[in-house]
């Protein structure tokens, strides 16, 4: 362990709920008979639809072309026929244009022979491949990877950090990937390193994942790459980019800047797996690992799911729910969205589908803030959430901005501990949007 590791005192230590799914090996989910594929599953401009209703599509065929600089390609996960192109509401609250495809036909995914991954391709080839295959950050934000792995001119990358923390409860997809396919992840790292040319490479894994630490260390040794695997204490939200950078290399990224601007690249384990598959097999991104878990799921599991599969189908595959769950969440329990329409589709950024019971959610009535200070004591961005909350509630979002509102990473630690059950994160999120819209320079 290098001596520069500095651990955060803030954030929260969460009860271990990963056990529900940690021991389930990844298995393929059933193919969806109808896939609903949003044309925007990434940060930036939505892709432009290039198919028509009634058209036949093949597995892996391009159905959405990237538009603009920050955009990504979207591919069909199944062979079939386009039955509709329409707009739906996504759980996150936005409306999106989607392509609906009914399963039909043969699977004939083009599969190149496995090349010796990145050694055979040039950097430009790799970047083009990543763009063509539509690989985006699978950890939640969905930033197009071909842009992420291109450092801005004049910036040299000191550190490539691999995010294997997976700090949110229930999620175990990254863990299973690290345990089952460590060498492929390392190949993905090799590709990323070829593009970024970092001075050092570190993988951060939480200490609960002891098995993964072992497998990754072994794989790194075998690969011959100078990768250091660091075990960090399991603490939420250590997987947050900024906190991980601070913990692993001791650098604080100034607010408003991306880590890459300061010479640090952070990439997730799932994304690196997708990078490997894109480069080795020219495989477009149309499936991903989703953890299906929660106290209200009968048989939690880690499934390899095709994009566009309705989340209700995943729950059914895992034995269904125990009664009516208190809440169904897409994503992690801290940053995900509650859903009521189980027809909502799995997208590139869907890390998990959770069915939570009332014991886990612990809904409570909102009461008055007593300024107990718990929120401020856990905030990883060192803000005072109760204070910002009060300012935003009174429409003083500009004052809130000058008190650090935009530094909020929406991790949810504050709402988690608030005894008065104030809707802190929700309100701050709205406040951030209002502050940005009110003509901030």
């Amino acid at each position, binding site marked *: 362990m290098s001596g520069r590791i500095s651990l955060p005192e803030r954030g929260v230590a969460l009860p271990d709920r990963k056990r529900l799914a940690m021991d389930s090996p990844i298995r393929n989910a059933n193919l969806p008979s109808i896939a609903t594929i949003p044309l925007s599953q990434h940060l930036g401009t939505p892709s432009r639809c290039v198919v028509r209703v009634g058209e036949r599509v093949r597995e892996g065929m391009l159905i959405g072309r990237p538009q603009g600089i920050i955009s990504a390609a979207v591919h069909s996960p199944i062979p079939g026929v386009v039955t509709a192109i329409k707009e739906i509401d996504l759980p996150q609250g936005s409306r999106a244009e989607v392509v609906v495809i009914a399963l039909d036909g043969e699977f004939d995914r083009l599969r190149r022979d496995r090349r010796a991954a990145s050694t055979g391709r040039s950097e430009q080839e790799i970047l083009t491949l990543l763009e063509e295959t539509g690989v985006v950050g699978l950890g939640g934000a969905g930033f197009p990877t071909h842009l992420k792995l291109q450092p801005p001119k004049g910036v040299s990358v000191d550190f490539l950090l691999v995010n294997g923390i997976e700090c949110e409860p229930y999620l175990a997809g990254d863990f299973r990937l690290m345990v089952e396919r460590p060498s492929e992840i390392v190949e993905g790292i090799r590709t990323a390193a070829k593009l970024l040319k970092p001075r050092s490479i570190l993988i951060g894994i939480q200490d609960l994942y002891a098995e993964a630490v072992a497998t990754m260390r072994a794989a790194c040794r075998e690969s011959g790459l100078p990768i250091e695997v660091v075990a960090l204490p399991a603490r939420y939200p250590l997987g947050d980019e900024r906190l991980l950078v601070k913990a692993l290399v001791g650098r604080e990224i100034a607010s408003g800047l991306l880590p890459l601007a300061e010479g640090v690249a952070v990439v997730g384990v799932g994304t690196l797996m997708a990078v490997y598959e894109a480069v080795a097999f020219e495989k477009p991104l149309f499936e991903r690992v989703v953890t299906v878990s929660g106290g209200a799921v009968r048989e939690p599991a880690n499934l390899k799911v095709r994009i566009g599969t309705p989340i209700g189908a995943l729950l059914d595959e895992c034995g269904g729910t125990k009664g009516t769950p208190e809440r169904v969440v897409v994503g992690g329990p801290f940053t995900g969205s509650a859903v009521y329409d189980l027809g909502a589709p799995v997208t590139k950024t869907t890390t998990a589908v959770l069915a939570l019971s009332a014991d886990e959610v612990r809904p409570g009535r909102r009461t008055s*803030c007593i300024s107990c200070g718990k929120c401020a004591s856990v905030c990883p961005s060192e803000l005072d959430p109760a204070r910002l909350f009060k300012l*935003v*509630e009174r429409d003083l979002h*500009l004052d809130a901005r000058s008190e650090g509102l935009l530094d909020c990473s929406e991790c949810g630690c504050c709402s988690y501990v608030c005894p008065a059950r104030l809707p802190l994160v929700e*309100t701050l999120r709205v406040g951030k949007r209002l502050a940005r819209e009110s003509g901030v320079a």
Partner: protein
Amino acid sequence: MTDSEPKTGASLTGSLFESPLALLVLGLFPSIAITTHVSYALALGGGVLVVMAGSRLVASLLAPVIPPRIRFGVHLVVIATLVTAVDQAVRAYAPALSKALGIYVPLVAVNCLILGRMAPGRSSAGKAVLGALGMGVSFALSLSLVALVREVLGSGTITLFPFGRWNGIVTVAGLSRNPIGAFALPAGAFLVVAYLAGLANWAALRRQEARKGRAEETGTSARSPSERESPRGSSAPEATG
């Protein structure tokens, strides 16, 4: 740029007398000292009444003759004269009261001046005097109300004017032996004034809302993210952004 920069923007000199806050503060100090006994409040209120009505009468009678530039000075002199007269009268006919009120009788002048500035200009002398009478009466009543609450709670008595052999003091059964002394102190005075002002505000707000309701305005603005439940009670009007 922040939301909370003061929006009043009133320059201190220009609107010293127009700002309601300044008026409240200036008029408050004599009130604090006077309202320990009901009789003091009544007496002072009466004094304000006499001086206001008298000065307004004289002022409106003299108005056609006085050039506008020295009108303020003339008002001052008239008020000062009347106040001195009242002070002498009280000293002559109610020496105990005069000793108790002390300097606050002349200070009546300040109150009258302020209340006089607040009055809108009226055309006829008659209307002006009536307006001044009205102001005086309301001032006397509010002072007496404060004094009533303060004296009952703070000393357990109600001191009125002696009549015949009765010394004018009404004792309130439970409180006279163990009154809540704090109300006899200035702290209590501020409390009582604050609550009465709050009650007046609340009544005015209720009237305003009733008027709005009748005019059928649907003025719900969904500005703030969660305006449904505010932790504040409905009584005190809060200043938002």
